[in-house]
């Protein structure tokens, strides 16, 4: 799953629940399971499945619904002067997750190490000077939250393939305007290209 899709999946069910109610969410999840054997979070990986189920319920209304989901979570910057890969994080829980990751010294160091080039975990921990036990735990948390994505692999001397990881951000800005914290992130190109959500929604 693309890192961006993992980030979006974290907020998708709450967006459906808040706007259309718990029962609607249950109906959509039930149909997803009986037709594709997946849950809502998994269906983000292959967004066409979720799209087809939403269309079964809402017809053409599914298109607007999907755009709403995306807009409630992130806003793609469409300004010509700016890099199109900048996104503004609209969802407060997602913004909190990112801020918390940068608030943790070890996680911030991990993300900084893989900002420019992908690295294997042992290399990341060595450069960031983090103990192995807590380091692996923190790297795994960043992977689970979609902030680290797999990009390539290396083959060890015994023939094993080990994944290399990269941050999904190239840059991040945090602005505080009155009481609102505005988090904008510059995503790596692959993250947007691999995102099935962005591809399905933007193809329209």
């Amino acid at each position, binding site marked *: 799953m693309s890192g961006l899709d993992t980030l979006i999946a974290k907020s998708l069910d709450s967006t459906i*629940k*808040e*706007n*259309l*109610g*718990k*029962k*609607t969410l249950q*109906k959509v999840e039930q*149909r997803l399971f*009986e*037709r594709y054997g997946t849950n809502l979070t998994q269906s983000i990986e292959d967004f066409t499945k979720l799209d087809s189920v939403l*269309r*079964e*319920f*809402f*017809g*053409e*209304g*599914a*298109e*607007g*619904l999907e755009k*709403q989901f995306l807009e409630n979570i992130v806003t793609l910057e469409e300004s010509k002067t700016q890099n199109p890969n900048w996104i503004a994080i609209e969802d407060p829980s997602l913004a909190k997750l990112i801020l918390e990751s940068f608030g943790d010294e070890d996680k911030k160091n991990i993300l900084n190490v893989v900002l420019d080039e992908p690295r294997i975990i042992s290399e990341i921990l060595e450069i960031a000077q983090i103990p192995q036990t807590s380091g692996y735990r923190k790297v795994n948390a960043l992977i689970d939250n979609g902030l680290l994505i797999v990009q390539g692999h290396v083959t060890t001397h015994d023939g094993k393939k080990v994944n290399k990881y990269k941050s999904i951000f190239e840059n991040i800005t945090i602005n505080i305007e009155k009481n609102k914290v505005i988090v904008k992130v510059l995503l790596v190109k692959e993250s947007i290209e691999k995102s099935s959500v962005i591809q399905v929604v933007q193809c*329209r």
Partner: protein
Amino acid sequence: MFHLGKRHDEPEIVPEKLHERIDYKIFIVILAGLLFYQFYLYSFKSPNDPNIELVETTVTSVTALIASVIGFFVAKRYWNSRVFGTSYLALALGMLMNVIAERVYYFLGHIGQTPSPSVADIFWLAFYPLMFYHLARNISFFKPKIRLPVKAFVIVLPIVITGVYAFLGYNQEQAADTTFFLGLAYSIGGSVILSGAILGAIIFRQGILGVPWLVLAMGIILTTAGDVWYSYVDLYNGYMITHMLNLLWYAGYLVIAYALYKHKKVI
């Protein structure tokens, strides 16, 4: 162990596509019931019989109340949700406005005051913004790309309905009085929500939610037809308590109630 009806050894087959149908028997039952009711009204010897008014206001209130109660049940189902919860609450309140208006109209007539134009009209007119909110909330949330001919149709329809009423009404009255403007307000309100309901039915038509929206549009067509017909007949002072046009309102409310039931069933 006995298994009645369904055989448990047969695998359940997941349908390739979800389907939902309109049960046309419901429409036949509504039509038959209303025709029976109209013949019952004709059985009264005099149209001025005070019992007729009581029967009529009870039937109107009950039909609108059925739709309102089902609307509240649907709103409760999606309680606290920003789109379904609030929009179905607005629809239920809108139907409740019709109930209150009927009771006020009956009360004013009963104490010998002119029932229309009166405060009852405020409640009837309150139905339109509430219904409009319901439609607009759903359509704006699910906003897909709307094709130009559909956009044009949605804009032109209320203009045509209101224009026809205004033209015929003004020709009849030769003056723009309270009755004319009240009729105009009903025509505008009815035609705008009709447009919205048709747009909703078009947006959702390929999904199972299209069925309740189509039924809702049918219900609004009936109530709007009743409103416009009433506004026109009222200009001629030709409205009577036993008038056939009442059936359009009753049918409209019951069809809206069926649409709400369908919505609850499909999602």
